[in-house]
């Protein structure tokens, strides 16, 4: 049984101008001990999916799903309870995720204290140990610091240490490297890999960057316009993508194009979030679109554990 099991999740937010469909139909199966990448352009619903799992969707949002389970517990009822106990979050911008006016010691201590009943001295030792586990060189000094006195990479390590301090075994990492330098980002990804093997964690990695998928993930799910359109082991998805959108994404990578050639940008734009989509959401932009693509929902096709939704026959891929 997968640790996180989501089938046909939709999140819609009612406004005066009609419902905003932030997530339309996302299915996600994440096994214990893997890093599962969720990739898509901004506005594809990847962050909202993460927020829904954390129970932090905006007030008034309507969450509907055929199945929305974490380790057998229904997230619609248990998300608030699981959050911070078993499910943790690593935010995009560590500078924004840390409270600017509180010391790191205070912020670490608050998290540890919220989860375990320990005397102050032990909590401090625990904080030092966790900071060291994230590879921070001088934990004692870091504890005395305020966020603005740390570099971006150090801040992100503190954020990861906080997530570990909750005791969570499932982490949602929302673009954990976007705000960092490329080399620092790579170090953070390596750290996450290491923590997954050493501590038996499971990570849901939200990103818009194929490199991150290739570098750090075991399996990946591609999201487009609030729908999961393709999922499978990273090797299969990257080397023989099934969905035309995934192929377009890969073609848009800098190293996919010959040196000096223009990047293949995807023509057109994603459907507006308030619209109702009858067929395949990518139909209007798809170079290989058939007539039925805009009208009927695409069927699922698969090669072993690699699955995608498309009208095109499998060999066209």
């Amino acid at each position: 049984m997968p640790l996180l099991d989501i089938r046909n999740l939709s999140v819609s937010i009612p406004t005066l101008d009609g419902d905003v469909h932030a997530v339309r139909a996302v299915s996600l199966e994440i096994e214990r001990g893997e890093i599962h990448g969720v990739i898509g352009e901004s506005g594809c619903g990847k962050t909202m999916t993460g927020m829904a799992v954390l129970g932090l969707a905006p007030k008034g949002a309507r969450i509907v799903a055929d199945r929305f389970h974490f380790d057998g517990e229904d997230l619609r009822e248990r998300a608030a309870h699981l959050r911070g106990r078993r499910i943790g979050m690593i935010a995009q911008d560590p500078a924004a995720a840390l409270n600017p006016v509180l010391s790191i010691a205070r912020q670490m201590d608050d998290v540890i204290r919220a989860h375990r009943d320990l005397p102050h001295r032990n909590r401090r030792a625990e904080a030092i140990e966790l900071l060291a586990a994230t590879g921070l060189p001088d934990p004692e000094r870091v504890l005395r610091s305020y966020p603005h006195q740390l570099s971006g990479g150090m801040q992100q390590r503190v954020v990861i240490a906080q997530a570990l301090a909750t005791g969570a075994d499932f982490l949602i990492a929302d673009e954990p490297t976007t705000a960092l330098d490329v080399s620092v980002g790579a170090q953070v990804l390596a750290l996450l890999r290491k923590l997954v093997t050493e501590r038996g964690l499971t990570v849901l990695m939200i990103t818009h960057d194929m490199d991150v998928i290739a570098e750090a993930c075991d399996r990946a799910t591609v999201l487009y316009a609030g729908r999961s359109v393709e999922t499978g082991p990273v090797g299969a998805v990257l080397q023989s993508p099934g969905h035309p959108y995934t192929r377009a994404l890969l073609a848009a990578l800098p190293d996919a194009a010959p040196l000096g050639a223009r990047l293949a940008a995807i023509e057109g734009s994603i459907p507006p979030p308030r619209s109702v989509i009858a067929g395949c959401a990518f139909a209007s932009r798809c170079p290989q679109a058939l007539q039925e693509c805009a009208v009927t929902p695409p069927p699922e096709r698969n090669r072993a554990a690699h699955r995608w939704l498309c009208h095109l026959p499998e060999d066209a891929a």
Partner: protein
Amino acid sequence: MELLRYILRRTFLSAFVLVGVTFLVFVVAQVVPSDPAALYAGPRPTAEQIEKARQELNLDAPLPARFATFAGAMASADFGISYKSRRLIAEDLRAYLPATLELAIFSTGLALLIGIPFGVIAAARQGGWADRLCSFGSIAAVAMPTFFLAMILQLIFAQWLGILPLSGRLSREIAISAPLPMVTGFNLIDALIAGRLEAFGDALTHLILPALTLASYPAGVAMRLTRSAMIEILERRHIVAARALGLSEPRILFGHALPNAMGPALTVIGLSFAYALTGAVLIEIIFAWPGLGRYVSEAILAKDFPVIAAVTMVVTICYVVMNLLIDITQALVDPRVALS
């Protein structure tokens, strides 16, 4: 460096403002339609007495010279003598200023203690009934005439319930038969110094009603400022992150969000202190509180202008210094202030 420059600049501006304030008070004193010499000379003065008073008060000297004398006297805290009582104003102030300061400081604390938590609650329940109730309460507190609120509180707590004294600063038994030795002039502190708990309690119960009256307006303002600051802060990422880390809601509100709202809180301290100082003019009469407010309102009736000018000067100085301190604190807490 930026910080030091900012502090120096603000201090200089405050000093400049105080000179301007002195000048303004002097100018206003010149337009008094009644003749100060006639007042000074006592009841039914003869022409000779008035002339003598005129010389004593140096009223015939040219204006610039008189301003110089006036400013010099103000700078050395020599406020002259009251036309009416002929007592040294500086001496009166020494007795009255602590009484008013005690009231002002106490009510400022009360305003923060009431306003900030309610502002936090309103922000946490934005749009809910608790928010609406708090918001309406703050509007009502701001619109309430202070002098009227004073009377209502007296009616409820002193007349009907009888749990708090109607007026005064100390009970008669203590004030007359066993007066407190005056060390600081603050009754609460003097009572503690003398080790007399019963006097401390007595002084405290006398403080509550006037302080509550003065606190209502700034508490309303504090509530609104805190609410709007908190609403903005609660949407920040680090609050979402704190939730995701499983911190309890009270801990997030008061431990993580509120410390980010210290800026508005400091503003409120200045505001309520100023309000308490001036509001004292209105409510010290009602509560028979022997402070600057009652002093000045008696002077108003007697047209005792030097007293009015002196009180205006002293209170304005307190106010300017307070604002200076708050600006500097704010710059120390948040260095961005100094840069703008």
